[in-house]
């Protein structure tokens, strides 16, 4: 094995870590400013120009805070729980491609930390490992709120993980590969969000629940559980939970972008122009592939998806825990199963007649399924709101 490959791994890993860390820092600012704008406030704008140094100030403040460990807490687990929560939120980004495969300095560069054939399964594995930190934080704190918050949170995560997994299956079916690079390449002609809009929508709802964001942030509802599983954490250990939540938001937006919104690829109608990531640019004597557009497109898509998450938080109230669970189990799970089978049939029919226009039955039938689900929810809510008094 050649030493340069270690350098390559190190550079890629450092890039991912720094991207997620700075992304986390500025996402907190972005969220606070965006929420402020929506609520007609100003938001943090004092530290640096437009408040750009605010994340730095927050970090410094948290470093100088006292860390408490409650009496009778399980010290070892209490120490490791935030770390176990934070690490998967970075590692999950290992298989996400940031750009097209290209040749730089005479070597072929693949723009992801690892280019593995079981990429999608890897995402599922890491997503399911992420539950541990939260359960353990709740348990080790020796606090009733923390315990209940941890259990609620993990029960919610595992319930929605099934629909998340079926979302992955939909993308694999359409892309005919489990390798994320292949899935992105398969979206050269059209994004999967267009072929399977309901699947993409379910995926986005599920990602909100997976990262415990509003309106699915019941486990952290301060009115009844103080702060949920991290009630007892302070200082940098609390900061790690916070970091994990925001890095998960970023990572899962990247995943959604990769699976349904063309990943690092341009809009499909730009595919033959000079704005495509495959285009060859001629500037003066130089001739090179426009691979650097890949990370830029990725960033744009992630920013837009993150804005939706923040917008939803500003707009919607929390969903009651019982409704949250039954929504996950009774609506999303059957709907995503239906979506998987509709996609399967669509792919088969298109293959049979050797004509990709037959893929149009996918959006049509899955929209019908989606409308049926919406009708079901509507009926259930009507029945409950009158009967419960």
């Amino acid at each position, binding site marked *: 094995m050649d030493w340069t490959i270690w350098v390559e791994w190190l550079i890629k890993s450092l890039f991912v870590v720094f991207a997620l860390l700075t992304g986390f820092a500025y996402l907190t600012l972005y969220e606070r400013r965006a929420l402020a704008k929506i609520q007609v406030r100003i938001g943090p704008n004092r530290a640096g120009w437009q408040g750009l140094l605010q994340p730095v100030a927050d970090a410094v403040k948290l470093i100088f805070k006292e860390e408490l460990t409650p009496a009778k807490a399980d010290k070892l687990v209490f120490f490791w729980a935030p770390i176990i929560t934070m690490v998967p939120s970075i590692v999950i980004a290992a298989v996400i491609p940031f750009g097209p495969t290209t040749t730089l300095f005479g070597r072929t560069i693949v723009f992801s930390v690892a280019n593995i054939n079981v990429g999608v399964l890897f995402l599922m594995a890491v997503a399911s490992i992420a539950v*541990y930190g939260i359960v353990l934080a709740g348990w080790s704190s020796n606090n009733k709120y923390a315990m209940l918050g941890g259990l609620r949170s993990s029960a919610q995560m595992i319930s929605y993980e099934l629909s998340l997994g079926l979302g992955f299956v939909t993308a694999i079916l359409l892309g005919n590969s489990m390798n994320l690079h292949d899935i992105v390449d398969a979206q050269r002609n059209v994004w999967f969000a267009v072929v399977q809009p309901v699947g993409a929508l379910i995926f986005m709802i599920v990602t909100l629940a997976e990262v415990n964001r509003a309106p699915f942030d019941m486990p952290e509802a301060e009115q009844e559980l103080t702060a949920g599983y991290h009630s007892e954490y302070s200082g940098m250990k609390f900061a790690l939970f916070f970091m994990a939540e925001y890095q998960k938001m970023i990572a899962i937006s990247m995943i959604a972008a990769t699976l349904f919104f063309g990943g690092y690829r341009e809009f499909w109608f730009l595919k033959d122009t000079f704005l495509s990531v495959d285009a060859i640019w001629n500037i003066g004597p130089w001739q090179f592939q426009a691979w650097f557009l890949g990370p830029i497109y990725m960033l744009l898509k992630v920013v837009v998806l993150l804005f939706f998450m923040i917008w939803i938080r500003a707009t919607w109230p929390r969903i009651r825990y019982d409704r949250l669970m039954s929504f996950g189990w009774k609506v999303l799970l059957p709907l995503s199963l239906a979506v998987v089978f509709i996609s399967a049939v669509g792919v088969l029919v298109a293959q049979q007649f050797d004509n990709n226009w037959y893929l149009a039955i996918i959006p049509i039938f899955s929209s019908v399924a989606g409308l049926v689900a919406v009708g079901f929810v509507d009926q259930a809510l009507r029945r409950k709101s009158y009967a419960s008094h």
Partner: protein
Amino acid sequence: MSIDLILFLILAVVAVATALGMLLSKNAVYSALFLVLNFAAIAVFYLLLGAPFIAISQVTVYAGAIMVLFLFVIMLLGAETLAPSKVLRGQGWAAFGLAVVLVAETVYLLVSRHAAVGVIARPDAFLNTMDSLREIGKALFIQYLLPFEVTSILLLVAMVGAIVLTRREKGG
């Protein structure tokens, strides 16, 4: 020594140590966590054998799902530090006997199979490709179709069992 062998030896120590840790921990939550580490070590074994699909499935299903259930059960019962309950008479001897049988069986399989197969060849050539995954898929959905369908019945039985055991009477 090749890197594979060194890695294998380190992981073997980790696997045995975590297994012992799981057996000897006083606290049930620690036992569960040791078991998770053990599963992780085994997943890396699968990777070394050139079976990434099995490796990552192992992490997803065992570490990600089954151990979460174990942790839930331990926490729900508040059973982390329960005093050991009464041990059945002769349990130790029975366990020892069964362990001997298991070891004998493993040794027999190792010896007999090794003669038959020799060193198992690793299909390095198509490891990290979709084709290797498609081969797994074909094996699972054509060759082992019946076991696959029967799995669903097993899952169904497990589901019904769990529901019956935890069902509360209405109004109770």
